[in-house]
């Protein structure tokens, strides 16, 4: 294998690993947008909260209180983070989306969730302080080597977990009654209501699933991120870029765009330096908005007057 090829493969693997993490977060945004036509700006803060929940599960609950081995504690932390995320989803639906839905305004819910995001970040700042937490996954220590390509067991875990959750989500949407109902609500809320589906319940369910994904994403991202109360802010801007590039509400587009952004990020780090990641991703976003504002794969809708 030549040096260049090895480098390209290595960076592609790093990129896919990152991309999987972004997909977990961006998918939630897209799911919520699909059924509700709303953006949860605090979505990525759920990732941070999930990461902190996972951190304390590993360092306190898992190892100290329950006396679990490192690996078991980390796996447990993923479950905790998932639960915490789901709880936050329930809360934000009850507090913001449900009350504001009646008023049919597209800006107010977004503004309200920006408020929630600012609140969550600064509440965590007050709780945890600004100094980054060192969050090591036991799987990060194990390196796997194939030829000249290196990757950690953590990256295998991340790719596996996100692939499984994305596949599970996909199967759920495609094959179960609830999933079909969800898609019906996404397409046409009134018709879905006529079919005997309670759209409010399904919207709540969607937000909970999306938020649980974000929370678990936190447990997986924790060891990658610099874990501070503002960790989510760097993720949210990229997630927005991903959902726009993929086309809002489009699940397949989001997956492709997430992986793409991950790979672009990996190569940007390699060739341009890590300081330019946001710049590159957002220039791509703006170009995308100019060229194809409906996303990579999308159909046009004409406004009904």
């Amino acid at each position: 294998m030549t040096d260049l090829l090895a480098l390209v493969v290595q960076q592609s693997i790093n990129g896919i690993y990152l991309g999987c993490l972004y997909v977990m977060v961006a998918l939630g945004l897209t799911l919520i947008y699909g059924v509700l036509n709303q953006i949860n700006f605090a979505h990525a803060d759920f990732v941070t909260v999930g990461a902190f929940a996972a951190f304390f599960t590993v360092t306190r609950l898992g190892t100290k209180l329950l006396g679990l081995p490192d690996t078991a504690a980390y796996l447990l932390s993923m479950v905790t983070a998932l639960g915490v995320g789901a709880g936050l989803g329930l809360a934000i639906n009850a507090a913001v989306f449900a009350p504001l839905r009646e008023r049919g305004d597209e800006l107010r819910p977004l503004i309200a969730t920006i408020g929630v995001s600012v609140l969550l970040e600064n509440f965590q700042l007050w709780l945890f302080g600004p100094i980054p937490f060192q969050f090591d996954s036991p799987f990060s220590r194990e390196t796997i080597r194939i030829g000249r390509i290196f990757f950690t067991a953590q990256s295998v875990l991340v790719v596996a977990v996100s692939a499984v959750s994305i596949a599970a989500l996909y199967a759920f949407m495609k094959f179960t009654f609830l999933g079909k109902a969800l898609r019906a609500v996404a397409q046409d809320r009134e018709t879905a209501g006529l079919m005997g589906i309670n759209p409010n319940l399904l919207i709540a369910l969607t937000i909970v699933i999306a938020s649980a994904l974000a929370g678990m994403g936190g447990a997986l991202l924790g060891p990658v991120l610099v874990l501070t109360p503002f960790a989510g802010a760097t993720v949210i801007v990229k997630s927005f870029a991903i959902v726009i590039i993929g086309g809002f509400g489009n699940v397949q587009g989001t997956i492709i765009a997430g992986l793409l952004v991950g790979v672009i990020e990996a190569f940007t780090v390699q060739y341009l330096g890590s300081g330019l990641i946001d710049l590159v991703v957002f220039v791509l976003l703006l170009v995308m908005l100019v060229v194809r504002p409906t996303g990579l794969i999308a159909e046009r809708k004409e406004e009904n007057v």
Partner: protein
Amino acid sequence: MSARTVGFVIAVLVVGALPWLLQAPYWRGILVLCAMNVLLAISLNLVLGYTGQLNLGQSAFFAIGAYVSTILVKTYAWNFWAASLAAVAAAGLLGLALAAFAVRLRGHYLAIASLGFAVITYQVLVNWEKVTEGVRGIYGVLPPVGSMVGLFYLVAGIALAVYVLIDNLVRSPVGDTLRAIREDEVSAASLGINGALWKAFAFGLGAAIAGLAGCFYPGFVGTLVPDAFNIIESFTMMAMVIVGGMGTMIGPVIGAIVLTFLPELLRDFGEFRLMVYGLALTLVVLFMPGGIVQAWRTLAGRQWHT
């Protein structure tokens, strides 16, 4: 004398008296900050409140005003006022450029595009070290006038002048046009209104006013670092507009004053400033969508008026 003239005279008197009511240097500093926030709130309100465009990138125009004016003064030895004029023009033109394509985008897409613009601006400030000094920052920036009281009078005077001009504008037929676009762009078009043009106009004017506020910021603080123009600054401006009452002239001014002073009064209780902003933003949207102004009108039982 009309009610407006009375209001104007009272505002002038209050501005004149404030530095003497709050004599501690710390509070005089807060007064300057408050006057700058009033300008920023007016600028965002023009875009968000009057044309309904959710611009999350207002911090970027604030930054452009600050950096362009400071670099022209420090590196090219321009006169402060000439540099400020150039900075305002730069912010306004960049605003127009962003608006030129962003006005085609609706609601959420515009929000994200403007957020993206703010992220890009911030990253350029950090990475273009040859010009901006990056995270090291630019030090020893002098204010246009020597004393804190003088600076307050200057910024507050400008804020007052901008208020009067924008107030005139929104009372004029232009105001009817902007509000019409906010309410329903399709039916505005049926009346011959070119929505894209007027939205870009409001966006550019708002950007220019934010840039104007930015000209005074570095001299006030003495240093200029990219972190002063983080995305969070866009959110704090938004909180001022929303809490005060968007789409009214006086609302965002009240919001700016309340949200500048309230966190200062709470300072003894720790670092609650941004928590207050976040909480206020959410609670007001949920329970008092018209902000303080609407709450007051409801209490006073006055008839609806925009």
